[in-house]
């Protein structure tokens, strides 16, 4: 990984200097280093070589962005199944934010191969009200009252059992 990153940075630096490489090794340009975007003719040198930084835009468009883009506007679910959050937050005592990739923060977890649990993260506001509603919803779904663990400090609820799809759809219907 570090080798590939290093080679990537080396190729980047090499690509940045592509405009400065002389074709003929015998006649090198007199000025080295990074110049502004101008065409420079080396003073007193041979007239065959022109330094130009106009081609650097081909390198610049390859540099990746660092920010996650906002998703395009969809009314209702997108063809992939992704649903945008509602424009106005629902008027409930709690709020569940989307993850940085704009998904509902419900995750399923397995420990020791047989212990399934579901985690709801990024909860703000009255977490106990959400806990009560989750318990009522899962009681109606399965007929059993699932144990839950509420972590007020991190704003997360862990439910015993694998309910990530059901909880995701339930939260999407609420408008989160």
């Amino acid at each position: 990984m570090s080798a590939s990153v290093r080679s990537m940075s080396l190729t980047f630096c090499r690509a940045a200097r592509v405009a400065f490489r002389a074709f003929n090794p015998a006649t090198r340009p007199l000025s080295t280093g990074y110049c502004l975007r101008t065409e420079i003719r080396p003073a007193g040198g041979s007239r065959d070589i022109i330094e130009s930084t106009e081609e650097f835009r081909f390198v610049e468009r390859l540099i990746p962005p660092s920010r996650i883009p906002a998703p395009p506007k969809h009314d209702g679910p997108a063809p992939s199944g992704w649903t945008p959050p509602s424009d106005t937050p629902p008027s409930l005592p709690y709020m569940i934010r989307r993850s940085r990739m704009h998904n509902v923060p419900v995750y399923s977890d397995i420990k020791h191969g047989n212990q399934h649990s579901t985690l709801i993260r990024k909860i703000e506001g009255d977490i106990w009200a959400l806990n009560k509603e989750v318990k009522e919803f899962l009681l109606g779904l399965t007929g059993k009252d699932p144990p839950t663990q509420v972590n007020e400090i991190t704003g997360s609820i862990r439910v015993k059992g694998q309910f990530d799809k059901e909880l995701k759809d339930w939260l999407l219907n609420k408008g989160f």
Partner: protein
Amino acid sequence: MFRATLAICGRTVVKRQFISSVSGESALPPNLRLPPNLIGVAAEKRPPPSGSDLPVVRRCEADVPAHLTPAQTWLESLGSRDSDQLGVVDLHPDVFSVPIRLDILHAVEVWQRNFKRISYANVKTRAEVRGGGRKPWQQKRTGRARHGSIRSPLWRGGGIIHGPRGPTSYYYMLPMKVRVQGLKIALSAKLAQDYLHIVDSLEIPTPDPQYLQDLVKHRQWGDSVLIVDVGEEFPQNILKATEDLKTVNIIPALGLNVHSLLKHESLVLTLEAVKFLEKKLLWHDVRYTPLYPFKLPYSDLP
């Protein structure tokens, strides 16, 4: 407390106590000097700027989430002693109103203290102490205890068994997002405890340190003040004024850290520093995981 004791004393005193509470004077003697951070004696609190008529001088550049409202605070000035409440400033809630996680704050503070630490303590083991290759006396018949070398750990001047060995590094890195969250929590704590002051610029009329100290005392900012601005150049007056002061310090915005925020009682930010901090700290909420280190160029770094 003082008023309660007066009321208990007698009905004749009630009228005087009533007048003093109506007029707003404190019943404490006038020559009593209290430290500004004394618990139990409330500092004169300004009303929060939510219901004021002053215009909002600065709005948040980044988008505020729909379910949150920006935190508001007063805009002040260092130009004269009495110029606070010049306007109202909006602060982004994801930087200045995050839930206060003391465990993250503790972790970041401990990390800041220890990651730079290299302990140079080193002691010699019995192999490294000079001498001790020969058996001091024969094994049997001398009447003394049996020994193999004069530098064994049992001997005076001998080697140490499990002592500190060589320069030890205590370097470790907390995840970048944890350190960023620590900064956000420290800023939110300063705002919540009324220790955050926003200033339009750092121009002061004189390079006299006494002016700054009078200002801090008059406005009850606390024992120590940390002044933060963006950029490498500061006005000469404020540099000269804070040069010899131990409790009032000035740093660039890149140098803001949790330890300094906890060490100084109150924090003074300029408007550009607020903009810079919001931009840098909010970027971490919307960035990708790094494809290559962020020291190398990306197309849209903050």
